[in-house]
């Protein structure tokens, strides 16, 4: 027990290294699917997920290569990419939701402004028009 404690103290990252090495192809595929679900959710709230999709496509290529070559290093790289996407997706989603809300507020403001302008024009335009017309014809003299 003392030996294992000493090992953990000297090599604090042993556990995480073993966890990555133990990941199987099926687990890597499940992790990729999990990352896709977070990206889809972020897109649903209005986030720009194009960068995240590019990362996941690179991870999918790593998975294909790992299946052919049997290289565990590729699985490790895949896991790093996927974990990064899973962490970043909610942030992208929140940012998108805020932008979507701002866009919605602006759009309804434009609609409301248009309605107000229409009411003002309908109410005051004849008076303003004729006032301007009379002013423009001020110098005219009516000759009988």
């Amino acid at each position, binding site marked *: 027990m003392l030996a294992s404690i000493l090992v953990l103290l000297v090599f604090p990252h042993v556990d995480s290294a073993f966890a990555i090495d133990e990941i199987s192809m099926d687990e890597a595929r499940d992790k*990729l*699917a999990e990352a*896709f*679900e977070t*990206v*889809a*959710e972020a*897109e*649903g709230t209005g986030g720009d*997920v*194009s960068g995240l*999709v590019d990362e*996941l*496509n690179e991870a*999918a290529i790593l*998975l*294909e290569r790992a299946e052919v070559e049997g290289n565990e290093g590729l699985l490790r790289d895949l896991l790093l990419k996927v974990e990064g996407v899973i962490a970043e997706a909610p942030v992208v989603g929140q940012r998108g939701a805020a932008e979507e809300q701002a866009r*919605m507020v602006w*759009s*309804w403001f*434009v*609609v409301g402004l*248009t*309605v107000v*302008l*229409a009411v003002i*024009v*309908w109410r005051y*335009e*004849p008076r303003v*028009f004729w006032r301007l017309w009379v002013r423009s014809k001020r110098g005219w003299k009516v000759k009988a």
Partner: protein
Amino acid sequence: MAVVLAVLVVVGVFAGSQTIFAGRVVEPFSELGVLGPKMKIGDYPKEVIAGENFSLYLYVGNHEGKVMYYAVLVKLGNATTLISMEEPLEVAEMARYEIMLLDGKNCTKPFTLSLAEAGVNYRLVFELWAYDEGVHDFEYQRRWCQLWLNVTKPVVP
């Protein structure tokens, strides 16, 4: 005054409709295609040698209105294989290619295959599957295409 009012009403209706309907996809669909070695429709190989690689291209397009995770499964059938529009082929996949696409995007991906056994009238069937977040698994999209091939024995020197 009437003209100005009419213009304002049209602008208001347009702005309102954009707010409500922007980004909606009326008829979502996905695309699957197989291209020849020159990345074009046509010039497909009709005869290949057993054990030797041959190259083709896969084309996948997304018009579903959202990001999609596609898998194209390559399966081998023959002249008696029944392919249904509704159900995938009940045969083990010989290759699998995965791609994620944003709405409105497409991808053309090279791939290489080889067939081990000689024979005639083989059908290389390509099925389009997509990941469904609701069931947490891939679902068959009822999109498929095929390539008829004859496989000849390699020439022994």
